[in-house]
């Protein structure tokens, strides 16, 4: 076996030292009736070469977004990842290390975590960041649970239909066993209406959960929502797109209490949805309630600056059922990737990437609605993602036709929004070229009977 050391001689010597007659003898504490007396029914072992060929064959059956233009969004995006992110994060000393519980031999990870927290606070304008959660969806749930723990007498959580439908589904799942109620306010023109929200928010409301830019890519009036929530004594949780902060006002400036995000856009491959990076930031007042790990600065012998995991009394290994959350593992490696990404991008790189997203997505929207077949159902401003309606209502045919031409053209909205069954969600990142956008638009315009012709498009 490729990862085992013990030779038959080693094994014999070790058994003698133990005083056991055989390896089987070491399992004596497992009652005989429970021993598996057959081989597991699994495929036979594959050496590296055979496994590589097998995985390559499986991989070849998939259409990789890296090989064809991808216009899919909805919480996962085909952004560019600089080479240094992969090179640095794959160093074994980062990659194969554990949670830094021994600070003396983990200063690399601890400093990287502290820098991650610092970078995220700089980016968001918020006071406190943890060292990451599972993903954007779990970050929303943990934010709401944190608000509910602080606002303990209230049991109602108000959100909007413009928040990622899967994030809302996760909230529903968690709320099924907790005494919390989720109220969802419909969005109009792609954004939540303040009047509808105002009617739903009352003195029983724990928090208002919004997304900005929202699931449709549209920009919400977060400042207005914050003002409205304040009057009812409710907190505001904002889910944001980290890349959008290269250009738009950050959650700190908008005045929200907790800001969370899917950090995938910061240097993490799409990988069919995971592993991703849950970003969580909040105001100082939540400092001792925030879930997850946190690195803190301190000193060691001689006053030397160094880092440790801190405020561990919030965590399960100390507080057990009184912990602020059950979250134990974090996404250390993806927090590291995000830090390296932000360090490479800097202020100007973030600004340029965000500008490219907004310019290219607007170009794509205009390019498509030139065709009488398509229209944009919403007039609200958007960032890198937008909704487009096929007036012929053939969304499935459009997508299948584009796919057969090697274009991942958009995400059908009908699955979550029956009222938008004739609509597509389209994301355009900085990676999409004008030629790709033109080809995409020509293809969608010309789809008939399940296939499009792009011969004259480029």
């Amino acid at each position, binding site marked *: *076996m490729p*990862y*085992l050391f*013990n030779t038959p001689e080693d094994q014999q010597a*070790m058994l003698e030292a133990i005083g056991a007659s055989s390896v089987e003898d070491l399992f*004596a504490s497992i*009652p005989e009736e429970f*021993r598996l007396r057959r081989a597991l029914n*699994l*495929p036979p072992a594959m050496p*590296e070469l055979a496994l590589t060929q097998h*995985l*390559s064959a499986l*991989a070849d059956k*998939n*259409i*990789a*977004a890296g090989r064809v233009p*991808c216009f899919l969004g909805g919480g996962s995006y085909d952004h560019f990842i600089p080479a240094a992110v992969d090179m640095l994060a794959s160093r074994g*000393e980062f*990659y194969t290390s*554990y949670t830094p519980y021994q*600070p003396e*031999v983990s200063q690399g990870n601890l400093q*990287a975590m*502290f*820098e991650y927290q610092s*970078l995220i606070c700089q*980016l968001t304008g918020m006071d406190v960041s943890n060292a990451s959660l*599972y993903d954007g*969806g779990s970050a929303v749930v943990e934010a709401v*649970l944190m608000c509910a723990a602080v606002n303990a007498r209230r049991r109602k959580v108000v959100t909007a239909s413009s928040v*990622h439908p899967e994030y809302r*589904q996760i909230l529903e*799942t*968690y709320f*099924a066993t907790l005494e919390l109620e989720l109220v969802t306010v419909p969005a109009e023109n792609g954004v939540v209406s303040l009047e509808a929200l105002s009617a739903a928010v009352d003195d029983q409301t724990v928090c208002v959960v919004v997304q900005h830019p929202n699931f449709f890519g549209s920009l919400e009036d977060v400042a207005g929502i914050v003002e409205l929530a304040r009057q009812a004594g409710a907190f505001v949780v904002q889910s944001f797109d980290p890349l959008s902060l290269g*250009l738009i006002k950050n959650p700190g400036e908008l005045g929200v209490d907790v800001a969370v995000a*899917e950090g995938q856009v910061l240097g993490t491959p*799409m990988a*069919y949805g*995971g*592993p991703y990076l849950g970003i969580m930031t909040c105001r100082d007042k939540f400092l001792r309630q925030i879930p997850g790990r*946190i690195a803190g600065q301190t000193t060691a*012998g001689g006053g030397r600056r*160094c*880092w440790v995991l801190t*405020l561990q009394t919030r965590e*399960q290994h100390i507080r057990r059922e009184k*912990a602020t959350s*059950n*979250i*134990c*593992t974090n996404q250390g*490696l993806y927090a590291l990737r995000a830090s390296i990404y932000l*360090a490479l991008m800097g202020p*100007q*790189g973030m600004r340029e990437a965000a*500008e490219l997203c907004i310019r290219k997505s607007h170009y794509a929207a205009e390019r498509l609605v030139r065709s009488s077949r398509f229209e944009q159902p919403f007039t609200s401003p958007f960032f890198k993602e937008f909704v487009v309606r096929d007036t012929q209502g053939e969304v499935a045919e459009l*997508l299948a036709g584009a796919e057969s031409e090697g274009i991942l053209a958009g995400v059908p909205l009908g699955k979550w929004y029956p009222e938008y069954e004739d609509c597509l969600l389209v994301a355009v990142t900085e990676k999409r070229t004008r030629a790709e956008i033109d080809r995409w638009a020509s293809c969608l315009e010309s789809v008939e009977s399940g296939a499009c012709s792009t011969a004259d498009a480029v």
Partner: protein
Amino acid sequence: MRNQQATQLLFELSKPGRRAAQMPAPDTPDVDLSDLLPEQFRASAPPPLPELAEPDVVRHYTNLSTLNMSVDTHFYPLGSCTMKYNPKRNERLAGLPGMADLHPYQSEGSLQGLLQLLFETQQMLAEISGLPAVSLQPAAGAHGELTALMVAAAHFRNLGEDRRVVLAPDSAHGTNPASAKIAGFDFKTIKSRPDGAVDLDDLKAKLSDKTAVFMITNPSTLGLFEKQIAQIADLVHEQGALIYLDGANMNAILGITRPGDFGADMMHFNPHKTFSGPHGGGGPGAGPICVREDLSPYLPTPVVVKEGDRYRLEENRPLSIGRVRSFFGNTGVLVKTYCYISTHGPDGLRRVSENAVLNANYLLSRVKHILPTPHGDRCMHEFVASAAKLKKERNVSAMDIAKRLLDYGFHAPTVYFPLTVPEAIMIEPTETESKETLDAFTAALFRITEESATELHDAPFSTAVSRPDEVQAARKPIMKWKSDS
């Protein structure tokens, strides 16, 4: 000589005007940005991030990495964490463009290779666990626990039974009680006997028709197989409650015994432990769960199903608890799980556990002459020693030993866990270590116990820092860089 400059904070290395990434010029028609983005939404300035050239960043992180211990560089006998070798092939294969560059909302037709892999992973985990229904969605072990408890809650809701209590032994991981609370249950602790086994009298006293789930880690965090598991299963099942197996220690029993066969109704796997996904400085992991067939309808959606020779995602499951994570789950980790299991096959997986247990017992046979091992001469994949005697007689604590081991080039074992053993030192060598390494570790441990107590209190001496002031860090938390500090 260490490069001190490169380990300054990124913010301290920053100089206005430097940059690494540069985006291409827009190739779309020139439009005034304010036409696209109304003023009210627009930030007044780019985000105040550090300004660095690419070599700054590369040197910074490369130097930081050298301040870590890791499995690639050191023996990491961290009990309960299963820090085994992380196969390089798995990284390459999970990173194939046809695996990594996939969008979660691609059509099923464009994902047949991946869906096949995920479907087969479900089948493999079902076979290894002896529990046929699988959800790959949970993002981590604790998330798997929580998801399974939600499944249990849905099951009892559907039966019309009001069961509000979850039980777990005092040696359980802290995530067990925390997950029970988040899933809306009341939590009660079951005592362990001095030999580490569950105190059956305490279990009987606390079991009732209000009990929903008994959570048990088996093999336990003490590295022991719970011999009374048949009786425990009978007691719990007689009350109509479910047994949840915390799968943190599956590395010990692959192909040797199956939780489904010894009475577990639900369990999670920690692929990053059992199937060697790298821990990445604290994540990502994954937390797939396996459950009894009749609990299958409650599993979160989506689940991968096979129809003819096509694979698809099944979302429409009316009794499902719903969704616990966005998209499918931690797919990248699951690809590595598939690769790990495929590399080993049935015989290889069994040999993994045999060697993990052999190594642990060998190490136990050496360590017991140096530090008492309160639970006897045999263990599964890990064991707990105690420095209580050394502490009393010579004022040398578990922490002192752990810290001094760092000087000898070994990562510290887990200390002060499980909570039931005073001055606990929990050691897990895993199967991917050699006899030579285990002998060297034993020799270091022996030398340490002979060293002067006063000196040990100041250890480690050779690391970048020694014994940071954790009290100060918690009392006056500094959790980010500030421009004026």
